[in-house]
């Protein structure tokens, strides 16, 4: 296993454990305000310090990890659940009107950056974590559709697919039984990368007020609150920023490591 894979897995697992732990325990209640104890630096009873309401930053980071991971995970799931079948369908009907329609539809969604989708949704439905999920999820659909189609097309030319067709299997059955298992590794790697982009997008949307709303804890919201405090209490901005950086870095390294580990050609080349 590569160094990237190990470092990435450890970092990602660390935040997953923090998020899971927040369901049963956090050092302090994040809704309990303690104004006399506000803006304390890291150390003592609050290892990562307190914010402008005297809330414990470590507890907020734990709860924020839960929000970030939940939003990014659901958004990637939406992208996979809709994008992979569309990509498989386009590949199975390569060159047809349906293929053309799916690909042009993808191009259209690509013209709407996730931020613009979020702006559109928020302008009409208001800001919330659910709307952030929808915005990031919609942006993920063409990513998976394109990747699936691109990976599936060369497989359709292979002999084992021809054999399946000769046996009388339908295009749908071939897609599910033969194409999908062969592109799963690729989807896992891309899923990891989109997951890290989802964490960044959720933080950005929450930062500008289009994502998770109070009292839901979010790393992006913590940074928005810290913006005016950065000169007097830098830790309020540094801690959530480093949390996002480490989580995204971990997932990116994990994605890179998984790609190398799951691709037998790269493994053989290394040996």
């Amino acid at each position, binding site marked *: 296993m590569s160094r990237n894979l190990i470092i990435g897995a450890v970092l990602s697992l660390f935040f997953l454990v923090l998020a899971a732990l927040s369901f049963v325990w956090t050092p302090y209640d994040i809704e309990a305000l303690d104004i006399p104890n506000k803006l304390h630096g890291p150390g003592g009873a609050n290892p990562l310090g307190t914010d402008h309401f005297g809330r414990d930053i470590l507890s907020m980071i734990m709860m924020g990890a839960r929000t970030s991971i939940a939003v990014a995970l659901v958004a990637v799931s939406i992208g996979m659940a809709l994008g992979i079948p569309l990509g498989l369908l386009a590949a199975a009907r390569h060159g047809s009107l349906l293929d053309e329609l799916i690909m042009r539809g993808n191009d259209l969604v690509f*013209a709407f950056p996730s931020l613009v989708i979020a702006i*559109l949704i928020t302008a*009409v439905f208001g800001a919330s974590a659910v709307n952030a999920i929808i915005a990031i999820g919609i942006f993920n659909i063409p990513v998976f559709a394109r990747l699936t189609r691109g990976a599936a097309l060369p497989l359709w030319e292979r002999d084992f697919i021809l054999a399946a067709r000769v046996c009388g299997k339908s295009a749908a059955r071939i897609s599910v039984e033969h194409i999908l298992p062969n592109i799963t590794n690729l989807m896992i790697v891309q899923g990891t990368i989109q997951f890290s982009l989802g964490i960044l997008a959720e933080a950005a949307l929450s930062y*500008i007020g289009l994502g998770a709303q109070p009292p839901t804890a979010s790393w992006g919201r913590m940074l928005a609150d810290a913006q005016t405090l*950065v000169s007097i209490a830098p830790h309020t901005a540094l801690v959530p920023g480093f949390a*996002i950086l480490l989580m995204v870095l971990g997932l990116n*390294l994990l994605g890179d490591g998984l790609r190398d580990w799951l691709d037998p050609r790269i493994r053989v080349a290394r040996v």
Partner: protein
Amino acid sequence: MIRYALGRLTSLIISLFVASLVIFAVIEVIPGDPAAFMLGVNARPDTIAALRAEMGLDQSLVTRYFDWVTGLLRGDFGQSWTYKTPVAELIADRIWVSLPLASYALILSTLIAFPAGIYAASRRGGPGDITIMGATQLGVAIPNFWFAMILVLIFAINLRWFSAGGFPGWSDPLLAIKSLTLPAIALALPQAAILARVMRSSLLDMLGEDFIRTARAKGLSRRQALWRHAVRNALIPVLTIIGLQFSFLLAGGIIIEQVFFLPGLGRLIFQSISARDLIVVESVVMLLVFTVIIVNFAVDLAYAVVDPRLRAKT
């Protein structure tokens, strides 16, 4: 080439048409009655009726869509409900912050990424390559708005080299550029990291090609073969990414404008969302999507110009 360009042009027109339909549907159809939505739940019925008439909501959806699109084509984006001025004027004022910011960031990103990517590829596996690749991993993972806050903390608050925010206008160009410098750096860094990685991998692909071996066999030094043959060919995919990045920089600028309190399109769109001024939101979103589609179209054409294989395939 002309056939290829015409094909892409048709695709461009269809994309713009469908995108405008989607934006119109989300803003003007889904809320039910946009006038009631904009005025809120406590609005009096006669106020809603007056706004309905002002916005032309008593006409059919098809007429409204047609009026909106033909207005856009004439440069008439409608009247802002909150500012009481034409939306086109609001956009024209703010685009002179957002567009230079995106362009400045693109120039910085390219200036950082090219030397970094070329150096890393030419020293593959060496300490320089490992350092640059490590730095790009960090660059890709760093949230740009957080990086912007760190830049403010260091260069504006501690060192006092730059202002922490605001924009003085273009009457003094040097001061204007100076006030856009920190935002442009914050915006450029993650894009530079991506671009450097693409540049490196594209150049490594080229360095493994037969024509480089031939060039070396004919007596060119490693450096000469790299600069005369490999870099030029490696630029093709890199230019595509640069084109695509411009759209992301324009959209990404919306967030950075918030950090630096810049009076650009981002500020306009967020103020309009808070004020429920759907007319402004609709036009600014259309403008952003229009830019992305046009840039993609230009990239496709540029790609076909530099890579004849693509034209032949289509």
